[in-house]
């Protein structure tokens, strides 16, 4: 299985994602420059964290027009698994591949800390290896992670179980105390209707080894590998 990790000018978690996919999980991984127009036959795409194009104008606003995004969009439309982490989530929102938008954290501050995140949907290629309701400890590091969408959109996301990850407190409840940035309904990550595109603000790729404080994020990458293996066994190819 091959992961394509997209590199925008200003990405800073690209090598973390590359390391997690290759050295930790043992898959193939390639770094794909944002001006490229092909994903090189990859089986999964990761849009990494960072500050693509310096976050100028709005987070992800310039990146959505990078040449590689046409290939990412086509890959997603064919059902290929696309994971947007932090800034990568913001890019997916700006590109319209996921609904909603990010605004400045409610408390104004850039928040960088390990947080508990509950898996609320396991039927995605990114969470199949998790137990329903499992709480993962992963770091967040963002100034604009306050998820916003109009009430009708939130209602549809909840109804169709598209909220994949939710910020919780240490007891596993999606309380105000467990909400680090003001996101509506403690939303930390969502998927599209087809469930093959997921964006989340926490960083699974920075929590794949015990020496980093948590290895819980590895479940997200393991899920992708499992989903790919199941697809191959079922005779499906997404790339």
């Amino acid at each position, binding site marked *: 299985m091959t992961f394509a990790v997209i590199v925008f000018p200003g990405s800073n978690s690209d090598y973390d994602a590359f390391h997690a996919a290759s050295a930790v999980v043992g898959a193939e991984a390639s770094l794909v420059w944002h001006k490229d127009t092909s994903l090189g036959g990859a089986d999964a795409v990761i849009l990494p964290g960072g500050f693509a194009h310096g976050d100028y*104008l*709005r987070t992800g606003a310039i990146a959505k*027009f990078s040449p590689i995004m046409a290939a990412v969009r086509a890959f997603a439309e064919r059902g290929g698994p696309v994971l947007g982490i932090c800034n990568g989530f913001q890019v997916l929102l700006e590109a319209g591949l996921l609904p909603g*938008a990010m*605004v*400045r954290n409610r408390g*104004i501050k850039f928040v960088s800390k390990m947080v508990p995140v509950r898996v609320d949907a396991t039927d995605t290629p990114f969470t199949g290896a998790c137990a329903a309701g499992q709480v993962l400890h992963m770091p967040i590091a963002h100034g604009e992670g306050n998820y*916003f969408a109009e009430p009708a959109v939130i209602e549809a996301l909840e109804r169709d179980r598209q909220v994949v990850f939710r910020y919780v407190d240490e007891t596993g409840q999606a309380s105000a105390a467990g909400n680090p940035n*003001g996101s509506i309904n403690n939303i930390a990550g969502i998927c599209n209707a087809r469930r093959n595109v997921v964006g989340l603000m926490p960083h699974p790729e920075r929590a794949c080894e015990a020496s980093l404080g948590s290895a819980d994020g590895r479940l997200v990458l393991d899920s992708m590998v499992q989903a790919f293996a199941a697809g191959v066994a079922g005779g499906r190819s997404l790339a």
Partner: protein
Amino acid sequence: MRARVYVTLKPSVFDPQGRVVAEALHTLGYGDVRDVRQGKFFEVELEGDDRASAEARVAEMAATLLANPVIESYRVEVL
């Protein structure tokens, strides 16, 4: 020809930065400040002299790039 674009958060979107500015103004003694909404302002220099066409093109630019219609609204002025 020059156009101005004003981008603001929609009324339904909470503006944490505007809130902090309002609180700072209160601290400075401006107790009559009810609320502050922070936005963005763009000046766009254009070739040509057709005002109607310029207004339509700048509105298109605002909808495509300058504003995110999910959370922001915009207003265009051609000078």
